[in-house]
């Protein structure tokens, strides 16, 4: 029983990271209807910047904040320079753009910081959380940060004018222009926010997986899985999907003999395919109600 609880909690903790990645993916998907394959690499690059800032002696939380700001600006710049010109291009051109971005960021990170793994600090420490052996303070911190992020995003989209404008621009771009919304900038804003959310995911997972240019490969796949499972149109679904994928991955690895660490990924993906066959919009994705 303790093993089960332990595995579920650990699953929720890694699920928090998948949830952050899934949130970032959903943000961009909502804005431009494409999956950003480079999301993980952008997050990795942000994490390296945080690491570099700390190497230069910047305290942890200042480095964290600065990295978010730089990542936001970087996301906006990538959209303006690379994807705005591709906005009307066919889907495959966009896919090529994402893959190019993936390769470029990966190589540049390797060039600047090389491929050896680096330690990344945690602000939460790694002692047992509330005296319990089940979960460490860092894992509890990951869960807390993710939930806080989700609430902040919910409040932003629900109660601010700019959040409403972003939702309108994502749902119906032409109508949005006709009420005076600059939809191009809403897309750029979505990229900036996705990039900053990705940075949070990278910074939280780095103490667990260690920092190196390929650190986000697996995480991104789980993030995609979480986003699809939760429904690509729902931020709440993305977070829920993230936690579910994290827990499921851990339970399968622990309880199904012969699975271990190697086969966790295919089995998790098989679950997702099953869910999608039964419910194609994902768990929380909405089907648009329409009367004609």
């Amino acid at each position, binding site marked *: 029983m303790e093993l089960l609880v332990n595995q579920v909690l650990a699953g929720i903790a890694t699920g928090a990271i998948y949830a952050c990645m899934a949130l970032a993916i959903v943000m961009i998907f909502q804005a431009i209807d494409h999956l950003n394959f480079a999301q993980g690499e952008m997050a990795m690059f942000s994490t390296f910047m945080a690491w570099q800032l700390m190497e230069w002696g910047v305290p942890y939380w200042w480095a964290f904040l600065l990295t978010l700001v730089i990542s936001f600006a970087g996301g906006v710049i990538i959209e303006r320079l690379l994807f705005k010109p591709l906005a009307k291009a066919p889907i495959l051109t966009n896919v090529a753009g994402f893959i190019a971005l993936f390769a470029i960021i990966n190589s540049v990170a390797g060039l600047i910081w090389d491929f050896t793994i680096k330690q990344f600090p945690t602000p939460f420490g790694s002692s047992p959380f509330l005296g319990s052996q089940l979960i460490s303070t860092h894992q509890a911190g990951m869960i807390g940060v993710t939930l806080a992020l989700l609430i902040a995003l919910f409040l932003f989209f629900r109660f601010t004018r700019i959040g409403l404008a972003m939702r309108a621009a994502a749902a119906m771009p032409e109508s949005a222009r006709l*009420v005076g919304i600059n939809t191009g900038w809403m897309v750029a804003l979505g990229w900036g926010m996705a990039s900053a959310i990705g940075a949070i995911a990278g910074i939280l997972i780095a103490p667990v997986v260690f920092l190196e240019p390929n650190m986000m490969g697996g995480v991104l796949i789980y993030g995609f899985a979480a986003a699809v499972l939760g429904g690509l149109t729902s931020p709440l679904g993305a977070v829920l999907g993230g936690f579910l994928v994290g827990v499921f991955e851990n339970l399968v690895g622990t309880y199904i003999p012969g699975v271990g660490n190697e086969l966790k990924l295919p089995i998790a993906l098989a679950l997702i395919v099953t869910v999608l066959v039964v419910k194609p919009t994902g768990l929380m994705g909405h089907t648009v109600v329409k009367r004609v």
Partner: protein
Amino acid sequence: MTILLSVHDLRAYYGQVQALHGLSFDLNEGSMTTLLGANGAGKTTTLRAICNMVRSTGAIQFEGKPLNGKSTENIVRLGIAHVPQGRGTFTTLTVEENLQLGAISRKDIKAISSDIERMYAHFPVLKQRHTQQAGTLSGGEQQMLAVARALMLRPRLMLLDEPSFGLAPLVVRDLFNILGKINREDKVSILVVEQNAQLALEIADKAYVIETGRIVMSGNATEIANDESVRKSYLGY
């Protein structure tokens, strides 16, 4: 009377196909002007060209200033509200969010909620349904919502693309009465494109008839309504 909108030698293109062939007309401040014509005559294209949603050449001036080269959203921000064909409802958002979006470019944030209440007074059905997803409204209710959303901009000029489309005759009558009231009481100038010529001529002051991308007739709405040859050859009733 001052001219609010003037369109001169407007030519519009969809790819290689030219849809408007040098169209010119004026709209007076405070007036309700209607553009009439058959399917495919270029009525919708004219409205879209005014808001730079289709490639066009020619001079368009609003309050004496040229609109050419401005983006759609910046044209809207000058006070031109456009209710497009199909109404442009944000179907996945609530009725109230749709109204808030109408005012999204306004700076006087404090006045917005009282304007929403005014819209609920104009259109009581919207108040009943204000938390409902806009896509679940009936066609007539969605058209009311579209007009209300446009008014939330506090526009100088409202462009309406076939507001009667797909609505029951009684609903259309209602809607046009409201449009007339908005035009008179709120001093919003209106340019309405219609296939339902009879109804449009009843409430408009001035009318232009378009055929294959050109103006073929213009005059006071009553004159045009009474001219039997115009009615028979262009308006079909």
